[in-house]
């Protein structure tokens, strides 16, 4: 490797999380610290013929917040002209961008959108007349958002299954370090739809109760709605603890399109590469924010990978027990939560975990605690055999 450590650092200068647990990172982190899960049983024919256990953002809350905020901004179009997902993303981006001080219209600002399904609810009969069919295209969704914020660069869209969020952060870091941009607004979002719920149901992957990552009695995943934004910059933000994206890596299992690697070697390779890009060694990692979907195979594979990378003793949690699996948002909001753990030197209990249910030992965080934290690892894996790892470091 050639002088990677000498590249200019990329700082996380602002962020936002929107989920069932709140509309800001602060609100979400308070609820995480109180170990409150947003996963509930929802009986809503729009989502599923039968009751479904998911983490859902309150629709009236989205509408009233979006209307209050957007209609006060003197834009050409009222809040009602934007889809559910667009409203969420605009609220998320606005919150993060405002506190970052970055001008989204800047020539050196890159906007990256991470999503798996975008406005897929526009396929539904009930939404057909209200919105133009074009908004189903992810680039059109991104353009709608870019236009809202007056951006001049064409947005980049990453749609890479459950690792999309980490891939988006990875792209932003690399393109800033390559000198092509100075700042990046990285946003991810996916909503709960009948489309996605029916698909995961057909895989029999959904848990009837809130999911229990790494637990002996885990019964599958919980889906969730989420949206998050991370603003990255080549310049540190004044008056705050500096966090950098220190290393990133992506790999593929080359094994199966809907099941993870049997050995975990490929995720482990991504973890090792991200640690080495950060100029660190495994003993420098203080905390792992795992993918932890609570499907039998994912958690098993992930624990093998963590063992292979000599990280079995490192405290680890999954946020899926709080937010469910938020798909294209997951890599971003879970990274933001992990970064806040670093900022506050505080480890959040892994919700739903009681007894270890994976064959390779991992150190799942079973109660909240203070801990001195400098460096954390975020992992993600997804359909198509993809894996991603990112290292965040407090300077």
């Amino acid at each position, binding site marked *: 490797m*050639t002088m990677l450590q000498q590249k200019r650092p990329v700082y996380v200068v602002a962020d936002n999380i929107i989920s069932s647990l709140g509309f800001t990172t602060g609100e979400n982190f308070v609820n995480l610290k109180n170990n409150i899960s947003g996963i509930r049983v929802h009986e809503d024919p729009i989502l599923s013929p039968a009751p479904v256990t998911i983490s859902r953002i309150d629709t009236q809350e989205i509408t009233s917040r979006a209307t209050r905020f957007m209609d006060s901004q003197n834009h050409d179009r009222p809040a009602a002209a934007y889809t559910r997902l667009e409203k969420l993303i605009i609220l998320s981006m606005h919150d993060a961008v405002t506190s970052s001080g970055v001008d989204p219209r800047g020539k050196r600002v890159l906007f990256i959108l991470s999503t798996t399904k975008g406005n897929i609810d526009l396929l539904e009969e009930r939404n057909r007349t209200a919105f133009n069919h074009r908004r189903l295209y992810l680039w059109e969704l991104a353009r709608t958002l870019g236009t809202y914020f007056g951006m001049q660069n064409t947005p980049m*869209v990453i749609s890479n299954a459950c690792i999309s969020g980490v891939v988006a952060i990875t792209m932003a870091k690399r393109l800033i370090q*390559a000198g*092509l941009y100075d700042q990046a607004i990285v946003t991810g979002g996916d909503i709960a739809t009948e489309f996605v719920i029916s698909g995961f149901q057909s*895989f029999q992957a959904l848990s009837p109760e809130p999911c229990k990552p790494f637990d002996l009695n885990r019964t599958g995943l919980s889906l969730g709605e989420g949206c998050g934004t991370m603003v990255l910059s080549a310049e540190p933000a004044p008056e705050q603890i500096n966090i950098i994206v220190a290393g990133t890596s992506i790999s593929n299992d*080359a094994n199966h*399109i809907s099941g993870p690697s049997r050995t975990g070697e490929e995720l482990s390779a991504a973890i090792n590469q991200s640690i080495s890009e950060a100029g660190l060694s495994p003993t420098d990692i203080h905390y792992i924010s795992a993918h932890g979907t609570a499907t039998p195979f994912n958690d098993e594979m992930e624990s093998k990978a963590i063992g292979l990378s000599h990280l079995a003793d490192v405290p680890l949690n999954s946020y899926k027990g709080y937010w469910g699996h938020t798909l294209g948002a997951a890599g971003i909001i879970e990274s933001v939560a992990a970064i806040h753990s670093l900022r506050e030197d505080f480890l959040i209990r892994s919700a739903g975990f009681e007894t270890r249910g994976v064959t390779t030992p991992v150190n799942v965080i079973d109660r909240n605690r203070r801990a001195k934290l400098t460096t954390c690892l975020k992992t993600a894996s997804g359909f198509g055999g*993809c894996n991603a790892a990112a290292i965040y470091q407090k300077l």
Partner: protein
Amino acid sequence: MELTVTSFCHIHENKVIVNDNLLFFQGNFINFADFIKTVYKQEQINYPKFYKMDSVSKLGFLATDLVLKARTIAGYASEAVGIIFSNSSSSLDTDVAHHETICDRSNYFPSPSVFVYTLPNIVIGEVCIKHKIKGENAFLVSESFDPQMIFNIVHEHFENNRMEACLCGWVEMMGNKFNALVMLVEKDGRAHDTASFAPIAFNVTKMKELFEHN
């Protein structure tokens, strides 16, 4: 860093072009399924999983297979080969098929074998499985083929020694409209054994030319 396209395949307008040679043309085009099956048979690819794939995966898989038939990557470690694909419609072609299985509550039959293809990066997964590729990979969505974006990403990978070879390009499929351009990019100076094809410089202008004129 100088990079070269050492093999490419362009499938569009009912024809298949590999390294400037017209490999296949269908005068009596009926639909994509028939077209791609005919190419698959003619090229004797013999990979039964092909039949289970959705259209965009078949398209990307086949284009890649033809690229790698013309130019092997066997000399590279699995981790040293990467894939950067992009398109306009993501997986919308298959999304519509999945939606049709759930839009009528009296006839509700969502299927995992359809649903798994409602992600655009599955085509990358299929290619990785066939060719044992384990390196960096990403799927991007843009309104139209964006050679500058592809160049920036691929070039950055090589600059940082994350890849020694990269499959990259465009794999677009919607309805019966399709267009795939898959390129194999390698570092300059590596011994070139494909006598019939002179490698092309990997840059934005050349990519545009390949996309528009081949």
